[in-house]
């Protein structure tokens, strides 16, 4: 195993893991706070991608389109939450079925609106080059994705630790009843967290476009990976989502490169091991 092989897979795994974090962070926080398993999270990602790439095709700026994709997704997410999901807190089975239904509707809606051909997305012009060190070639854009995801993670950590809203969210995760008893507006925290999860996944859609492209069915392929991240990291833990994303990204990269005939196996072995020895995940708390 030479240095190039190692560096290439390390960076590739990190980039892919960063993308997974944008999806998994919302998933884990929504579960931690409301005990809702949101199977539509990756469909949110896909919707963001399609809205974004449509705007880019009409000549809008890449970053702006990405944010717009996130905002559209957030509005839709909030509509789904306020009309249906808010009734099913702490009812994982119902919320699971409900969000699965929304995922299917979104997927078919995307198919009807945009057709089924896979759409590729070009990175913004200033990031189309690659860096080259010896025989190692790495796209600049992928480095940008890593940087953006870590920035998003930092913003989320700071908001959770240093703002009043963050305190409310953490208090509600720890003991919702007690927080309510103290007169805290827990409902507001619910809306904010669900909206933020949808927003980040929606922004991630176009950001991830140059890596995953967009096509109906992409959401179904990302869902097992996003859940692997949440299980490894621990349900409800943002630190867990970050560590889990990077871990799954790296295992995915090295596993495929070294044992190409076992690609899914190598991803789900760590998941199985964690389920066996630490069912609450690396950073989750015992229920």
């Amino acid at each position: 195993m030479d240095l190039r092989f190692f560096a290439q897979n390390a960076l590739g795994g990190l980039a892919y893991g960063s993308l997974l974090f944008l999806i998994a962070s919302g998933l884990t926080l929504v579960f931690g706070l409301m005990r809702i398993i949101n199977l539509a999270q990756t469909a949110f990602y896909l919707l963001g991608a399609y809205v974004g790439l449509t705007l880019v095709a009409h000549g809008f700026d890449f970053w702006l389109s990405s944010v717009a994709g996130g905002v559209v997704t957030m509005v839709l997410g909030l509509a789904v939450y306020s009309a249906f999901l808010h009734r099913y807190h702490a009812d994982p089975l119902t919320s699971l079925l409900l969000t699965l239904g929304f995922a299917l509707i979104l997927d078919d809606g995307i198919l009807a609106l945009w057709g089924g051909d896979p759409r590729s997305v070009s990175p913004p012009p200033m990031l189309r080059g690659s860096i080259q060190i010896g025989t190692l070639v790495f796209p600049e854009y992928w480095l940008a994705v890593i940087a953006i995801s870590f920035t998003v993670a930092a913003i989320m950590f700071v908001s959770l630790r240093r703002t009043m809203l963050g305190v409310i969210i953490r208090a509600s995760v720890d003991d919702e009843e007690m927080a309510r008893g103290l007169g805290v507006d827990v409902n507001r925290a619910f809306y904010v967290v669900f909206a933020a999860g949808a927003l980040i996944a929606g922004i991630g859609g176009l950001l991830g476009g140059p890596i995953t492209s967009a096509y109906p069915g992409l959401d179904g392929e990302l869902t097992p990976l996003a859940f692997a991240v949440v299980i490894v990291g621990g349900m409800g833990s943002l630190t867990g989502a970050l560590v889990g994303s990077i871990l799954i990204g790296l295992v995915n990269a090295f596993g495929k490169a070294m044992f190409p005939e076992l690609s899914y196996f190598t991803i789900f072995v760590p998941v199985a091991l964690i389920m066996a020895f630490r069912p609450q995940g690396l950073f989750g708390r015992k229920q």
Partner: protein
Amino acid sequence: MRMSTRAKTAVLAVVIVLVSAGVPSPTRSADPGPIKVALLAPTSGSAAAAGHDMVAGWQLFWKEHGGKVAGRTVETVVYDTASNPTHALDQARHAVEADGAQMIVGPYLANEGLAVAPYAVQHRIPLFLPTVSADDLSQRQASAFVIKVAGWSSSLPTHVAGVWAYEQGYRKVVTLANSYAFGYENAGGFAQTFAQKGGKITDQIWAPLGTADYTPYISRIQAAAPDALFVEMVGADAVHFLQQWSSLGLKSKIPLIANETTTDQSNIRSISPEIVEGITSFGHFAEGRDTPATRAFIDKYGKAEGVLPSYMATSFYTAAQWIAQAIENVHGNTGDVGTLLQAVRQIKLADSPFGPMTLDQYGCPLENVYVRRVTATTGDAAKYAKTWNVVTKTYPHVSQFWTWKPSDYLKQPVYSPSYQGYTK
């Protein structure tokens, strides 16, 4: 009971003769009513884009001909297979038993085709497979009722690719293909002829269908430093692979020998030209083929759909043309299945959008294989797409058995991960 291949061939021949001799035709009433065709296509699910193209190609032909042939109306009903073999079989059953379909065209995926074929054979319903390319449906499991009209076998173009690659001077090649029947058959066709010439397959990588991140595989290929990479990809996997291959800087370093689907128009139409231009691939169709038949078709299709046709759309247009001609030849009497099947088998297309086509006795066309190169579109085609596949070399009249005798070829097993036609 196991039969030798020769015995199977003999039985097949007898069956064809018996069927051709004719089941007594039902008494004809004055108005025979419409000819009912079931078009099985995945219009939802993972292969929905292909399903759309299939329906568009088929309907374009019938629209041109007023939905009529030999004085009879052709009534096509589209049944959604949802990209699922079980569902495809249910739909076939429903089409035949409830709706009275007289023939089935489609489905799309190999596993759908393998699910529907036994049903069609048991119920003596003609099954026409323009896109299902599973080798065995016209080889070890060939049937009088199953015909790859305007179709192909997966390994047919890649047998040519293996020989071509050796002639280019490549000696060490890695293959990358999806881990399912289509991938095994594409890679196997290449590996067998390449190794037979004296080339060496140094590694074979099987990636699951639906892989978003190909960079680890690409990293492994780069470490192996082969003379060239043979690659089979479909749909979104092709888009992922081509994008990542180019962004990791390998496009200018390791030559690609791609199968037909990797650079099919349905994939390259959404990719930036610099990522795909110059890639060599092997197919039975090339939308940039400079002949009147192909040009006229892509022009019509462009006007109707606003894009250049994929091979799926072209297959169904040509299949409609083929079947219509056969119905014409039996003067619209489709009630007699044996006569109809024989008429379909006797069609010789002097030139179609694919080029000349005739059927072998196993139900797969003898057809051109094109060495194709992705280039920028020119002329009218530029209105509909940025890039297309043009022909750099034509291998005419290629058989699914390449240069082997069918009886010899059929002694070897169908291509799979454990059988790729060479000894490691």
